[in-house]
């Protein structure tokens, strides 16, 4: 039964993807892309309504009929309200997410509600690629419907809300999702309405930071000089501010005098950058090397030292800051994985 259901769901998803074509974010949920079906409870209710109707007709009871018809009409009205709960909602999403293996990737979805009705009980499900297991790293943690993760919430009238969907990331790699689904069972759980959005979400799953090797020699020296510097900060000059440099290095006085934004640079941090090298890790297999490199990146980043990354086929020149770290981690995540066409 459940495999039948799963097969039907996959068929439907593929059909919806063909029907609507690829979407570009943000997506406004149009009425033609909302699907609705009764839930199992809704079917039970419908059967009960039929029983009610037959009983009322048999007893020739006009009051019974009135009650049965009121309940049936309530069901129809509920269907419209369930559909309306998604209608006209505007969805935007962060299409890229970062994670570590054995951790979780978080995609953020922004739901904007321009109408004056509150949207409640909206669930977003990120769906694994059609057949499952095609994209590397997928196939883990999927359930019967191919859902990889879900998040729920509501949106107040004339405002927006952020939903976070966490997806378990078991293995290093690049996780590509081609579809996500908005669904709701509001108000009574008699119906569920849903809508598919075809846009690719990418999660870069970096290796888990593990390893026992010490930093390369150049880095060791940098580390030592760093501890020296802690005592007396050895001011060596000013250089232009770049995003990512910690604010505590900001030359506020220069800025206050009306100059350009600048940062103080110190002899220690200005020390020659360390290179985190693939080739320095002889004797380890690929994943362990990547894990070690990941650990080094995180350590260097925490110590606010400039660092560069050299892995086969890619070289990232030394720099500092969050964007650089993300770049390096993504390089590790994508290592050895063919880019999709």
């Amino acid at each position, binding site marked *: 039964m459940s495999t039948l259901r799963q097969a039907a769901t996959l068929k439907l998803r593929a059909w919806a993807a063909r029907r609507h074509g690829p979407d570009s974010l943000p997506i406004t949920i149009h009425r033609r892309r909302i699907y609705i079906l009764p839930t199992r*409870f809704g079917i*039970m*209710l419908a059967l*009960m309504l039929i*029983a*009610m109707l*037959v*009983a*009322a*007709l*048999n*007893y*020739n*009871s*006009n*009051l*019974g*009929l*009135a*009650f*049965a*018809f*009121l*309940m*049936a*009409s*309530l069901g*129809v*009205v*509920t269907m*419209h*309200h369930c559909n*309306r709960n998604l*209608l*006209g909602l505007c969805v935007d999403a962060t299409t890229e997410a970062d994670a570590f293996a054995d951790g979780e990737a978080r995609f953020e979805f922004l739901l904007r509600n*321009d*109408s*004056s*009705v509150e949207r*409640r*009980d909206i*669930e977003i499900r990120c769906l694994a690629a059609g057949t499952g297991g095609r994209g590397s790293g997928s196939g883990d943690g999927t359930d019967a419907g191919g859902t990889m993760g879900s998040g*729920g*919430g*509501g949106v107040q009238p004339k405002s927006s809300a952020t939903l976070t969907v966490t997806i378990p990331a078991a293995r290093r790699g690049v996780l590509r999702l081609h579809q996500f689904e908005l669904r709701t*069972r*509001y*108000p*009574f*759980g008699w119906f569920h309405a849903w809508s598919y959005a075809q846009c690719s979400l990418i999660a870069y799953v970096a290796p888990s930071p593990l390893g026992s090797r010490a930093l390369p020699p150049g880095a060791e020296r940098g580390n030592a000089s760093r501890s020296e510097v802690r005592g007396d900060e050895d001011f060596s000059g000013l250089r232009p501010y770049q995003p990512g440099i910690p604010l505590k290095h900001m030359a506020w006085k220069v800025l206050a005098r009306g100059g350009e934004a600048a940062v103080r640079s110190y002899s220690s941090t200005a020390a020659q950058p360390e290179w985190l090298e693939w080739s320095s890790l002889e004797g380890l297999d690929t994943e362990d090397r990547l894990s070690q490199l990941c650990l080094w990146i995180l350590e260097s980043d925490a110590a606010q030292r400039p660092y560069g990354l050299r892995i086969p086929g890619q070289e990232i020149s030394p720099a500092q800051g969050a964007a650089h770290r993300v770049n390096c981690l993504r390089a590790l995540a994508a290592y050895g994985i063919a880019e999709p066409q």
Partner: protein
Amino acid sequence: MPYRDLQGICACLALTLAAQVASLPAWVLLTVVACAGIRLLLARRGGTAPPRSLRLGLAAVAIVLLFLQLHTFNGLAAGSALLALMAGLKLLETQTTRDIYVITLIIYFLSLAALLEGDSFWMLAYLIGVCWLTTATLLRLTTAGTTGGGAPGWRLSLRYVGRLMSQALPLALILWLFFPRFSGPLWHLPATARSAESGLSDTMSPGDITELALSDDVAFRVHFEDAVPPPHERYWRGPVLHDFDGHTWRRSYSAPLHAAKLRTEGPAYRYTLSLEPHQHHWIFTLDWPVQWDLPRAALTADYTLVQPEPVSRPINVQATSYTRVQAAEPLQPMQRRRDTRLPPDRNPRTLQLSQTLRRAHPDDMDYVRAVLGMFTQQAFYYTLTPPRLAGDSVDEFLFDTKRGFCGHYASAFATLMRDAGIPARVVTGYQGGTFNRFADYWIVRQSDAHAWDEVWIEGHGWVRIDPTAAIAPSRVEHGLDAALGADEPLGSRWQRDTPWLADTRLRLDALRQLWRERILFFDQDSQQKMLETLRIPQPDGQKLVMVLAAALTIALCWLTWTVRRELKPTPKPPLVRHYLRLCAKLAAAGVPRMPHEGAQAYAARVARCRPDLAAQVTALCQRYNFLRYGTAPAHITVRQFETAVRAFRPKFKPPRPALRPPDSHAS
């Protein structure tokens, strides 16, 4: 499962069962209450459901008990009891929302079951209220699990469900009006458990009718199609009593379902009688019925209309009666024997009296007049509080107490007739009625209950003699109130004596009758009449279904519109609408406004791109800015702005390529 929601669902179940307290076995109710109590206690302590084996055992025991008591699971009462038990036992094991779903379904169905045999507006309103509450609880439950913000509050939930129900109302109304009704049940209904009998019974002892006279309950309502019989002919025939044991009169069940033909005289009275359920087989009719529209009803040999099943639901009867009839056939010897029989050694003084009178009046009719004359000449009183009679009740009444109600007189008169060898029987029923002048019908209450006699006079047949009319003529002409002294303990007399209160009662009763006729008895005929008023030629079932489909289509369109209407953003103020129209015109002319541009910047850009429009656009945008943000001079109004925008008709020109910003132009 939040404790509060569990409480809510228990409350809803209790409210539904409250509507069925009378029809469910007490132990079923107790079981459900106990289950709910145990579950709530467990939930309060944070515990889980009791073990599975205990629950299953309990369920098995309950179902066996139920079967032992009712011997069936078929039928309304058994089905309701079974459902109630299931809901109670389900409560014991509620862990997930799915269990609650099942309980809500049971609540809905139990509500319907309570309505199937009910007839009251208040019951319908109450049960709709219960379902409202149940659905609100359901809303809280379904949203609590998934929404980050938690379930909406009770007030909000109730308001939301109320709105949904009000949107469902038009649809439900259309379905109710146009859904084809069937003339009979789809299959045979199992007999329902009989509730308490009310009104007249098939025996009459002295004092029986007195109790009825104190009751204000409605026995039936009558609408006369055309002529209304005069008060002294308004006798409503009920069970006829033949067998007398000296104290109590009883109905004879040997009477076959065959009534001898009658020769009718005088006008025929056609009427519709709306009978309240009384759990007896007989149906009251105006004396003497000749035609009626109940297919299964028939006349007994003593002209009481009876049907095979007891009247357990309100029914409507259309009938025709003649108040003046003559028997066309002679009295059967068996009937004569039965209606002259008396217990041999009871009421000896009455026998003596009758023999004396009979000797003086050998003619039957003379004898009847003499007995009636005795009642008027001697000091007999008509009273609701006669002394208690024991033993030979007729003797004591005629010679000692001389105070009695209609039953005493009817009993004594019939005894005197039988002592003289004249066939006589006691007829019970109702006499009179109150006219409701706010709607054209008569109300006959239990306080109108009456007993009179019929005697067989050769050449005339059965002749109605009402000895009460001889003692208290105003009882027959004006009703019980007029006939009784002011000190009689007649119930709610003060209400009838206060005119405005009496009027209010009548108005309420008219409403009740309207409810009954228009709602409870809405059937095929009513639907056909409805189609006729809609001017649909030759209405039949097929056309009804077509009208239903058309009305449903309209209602569903309305529903879609009304549900989605709220999604539309609130309309912008007129000024902004006019400004947006200006922008649209300019966009059509090739200069669309950028999202970040204010009116002034836009005007400046238009002036650069399209010098031909510069003057107009600058003036318009300036006016807009004045109206929107500044204090506009008196001569600038929104209306004026609107006409200016309307009059503005820019021509399209392709945009000039590579328009450079002004500052780079200067350098």
